[in-house]
């Protein structure tokens, strides 16, 4: 046998078993899917597995099918607790079933299983308050990304003052890695604070919302921004200089000088930047 070449029978059994595990519906349907029958005809399926004292071959296969769905739905529920709460158990489970059919895991980790769920939700019809539900999913995805990001150094609040004011427009402020910007139609962060605190979650009301989601002392946090502040941070995070970012901000509505000072004081205080360099 060539080095590391897979035996054909082993490969056939594995492809067959996986096809049966991933298939929707009862086990009798799973063994008749095209993927399963490509390896073994349904009539041969019971003969591939030994019966136990108590279970028939396909009942034994069905144990794995049940555990697959339970495990992956649980992983999605852990990443999307707000979405699960909003939709309820049954609807969330059905959403996950549909999602997993289209996006089965191809990674060694379950951490990023739900990365395509917000985009998938964009195509789901029949949702109550769909814009809110999609905002909620985007917010929860970004929160998991920020949670898992690598640590980076944090520039102290006095860093920018080490430069003469006349060169500030040529400064480049680099955000920490655990930093994401999010533009939403609902104040989802307030909704989720109430949810995590176990408070009654009010019915959401539309309100344009600009957030920076970041991590401080290993906790995921959010800061609500104004539209100009969002534009400023967005341009900075793309690598623009402070001068270029300020221009973008003025196009988005502008700000008073005291606003700017207060923003940067807060942003540096929250550890949003890892470095300041003169270019």
């Amino acid at each position, binding site marked *: *046998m060539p080095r590391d070449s897979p035996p054909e029978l*082993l490969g056939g*059994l594995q492809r067959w078993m996986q096809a049966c595990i991933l298939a929707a519906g009862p086990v009798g349907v799973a063994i008749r899917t095209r993927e399963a029958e490509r390896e073994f005809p349904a009539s041969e399926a019971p003969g591939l*597995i030994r019966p136990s004292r108590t279970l028939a071959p396909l009942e034994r296969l069905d144990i794995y099918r049940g555990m697959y769905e339970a495990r992956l739905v649980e992983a999605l529920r852990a990443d999307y607790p707000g979405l699960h709460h909003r939709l309820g158990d049954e609807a969330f489970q059905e959403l996950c079933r549909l999602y997993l059919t289209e996006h089965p895991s191809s990674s060694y980790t379950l951490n990023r299983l739900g990365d395509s769920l917000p985009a998938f939700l964009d195509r789901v019809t029949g949702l109550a308050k769909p814009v809110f539900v999609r905002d909620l999913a985007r917010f929860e995805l970004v929160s998991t990304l920020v949670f898992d990001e690598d640590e980076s150094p944090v520039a102290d609040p006095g860093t920018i003052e080490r430069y003469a004011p006349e060169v500030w427009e040529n400064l480049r402020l680099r955000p920490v890695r655990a930093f994401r910007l999010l533009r939403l139609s609902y104040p989802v962060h307030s909704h989720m604070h109430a949810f995590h605190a176990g408070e009654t979650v009010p019915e959401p009301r539309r309100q344009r919302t600009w957030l920076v989601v970041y991590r401080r002392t290993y906790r995921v946090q959010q800061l609500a921004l104004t539209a100009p502040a969002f534009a400023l941070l967005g341009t900075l995070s793309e690598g623009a200089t402070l001068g270029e970012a300020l221009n973008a901000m003025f196009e988005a509505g502008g700000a008073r000088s005291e606003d700017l000072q207060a923003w940067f004081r807060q942003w540096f205080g929250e550890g949003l930047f890892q470095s300041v360099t003169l270019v």
Partner: protein
Amino acid sequence: MANRWGIPDLGFGIGLRTVHFPHILAEHPPVDWFEVLSENFMDSGGRPAYVLDRVAERYPVAMHGVSLSIGSTDPLNFAHLAKLKRLARRTRARWISDHLCWTGVSGLNTHDLLPMPYTSQSLRYVAERVRIVSDYLEQPLILENPSSYLEFAGSTWTECDFLAELADLSGCGVLLDVNNVYVSAFNHGFDPVQYIDRIPEGSVVQIHLAGHTHKGTHILDTHSDHVVEDVWRLYAHACRRFGTVSTLLEWDEAIPAFDVVHAEVLKAGRFLEDALHAA
């Protein structure tokens, strides 16, 4: 009795779980060692990484994986192995273990520990992959006997003989999960004592203990409860055969307070002492 690599007996450890992070960081409980689920820390740079570093500073650590998929007919994932090796170096892991199973094929992952057909062909195939992985990791790979809910009709080897032969052919160590032996023995109708007696004495590097869920027709390996009396008796038998071996308790569902989990693994000391006195 030492294993053939001279890997030391670390005593009685428990699996590192998120719900226990605050207690471990604050109290530094007198646990002999921790086992870390490798995939939970490979891609997470925030709090999990911080906690793992603090734990590894203070306690011996061993890595335990669930996604190596050593029995899969897909090619080995060297990106995964590179991360595993980096993590093991960072934590100064005493050994690296995974399972004798496959988790997916055709680029997908079911995130379950799926059973192998035990044939001479699959034995040669897995042995070659174990050698490649051990060479890459620059240390012997330690493989755990999985719990399983079905057996393939085409198997020509018993699992214990397959594992024993694999250890001999490939040079892998054995992580003997006593609860898994018990679970599979019930599910497939074999004698768990004979299973343990077939495992070569110098090959066992670690023992796992856990609770399970009896469903009447079969037993599920849920890690959701105290270790049952029959499994403790089986553990005592393993102690008589293998001597003092690093022993670890897994608890993954309905996880109780840290002290409850710790107290459960410390029960093992009593069984070990009785077994050694009786020997």
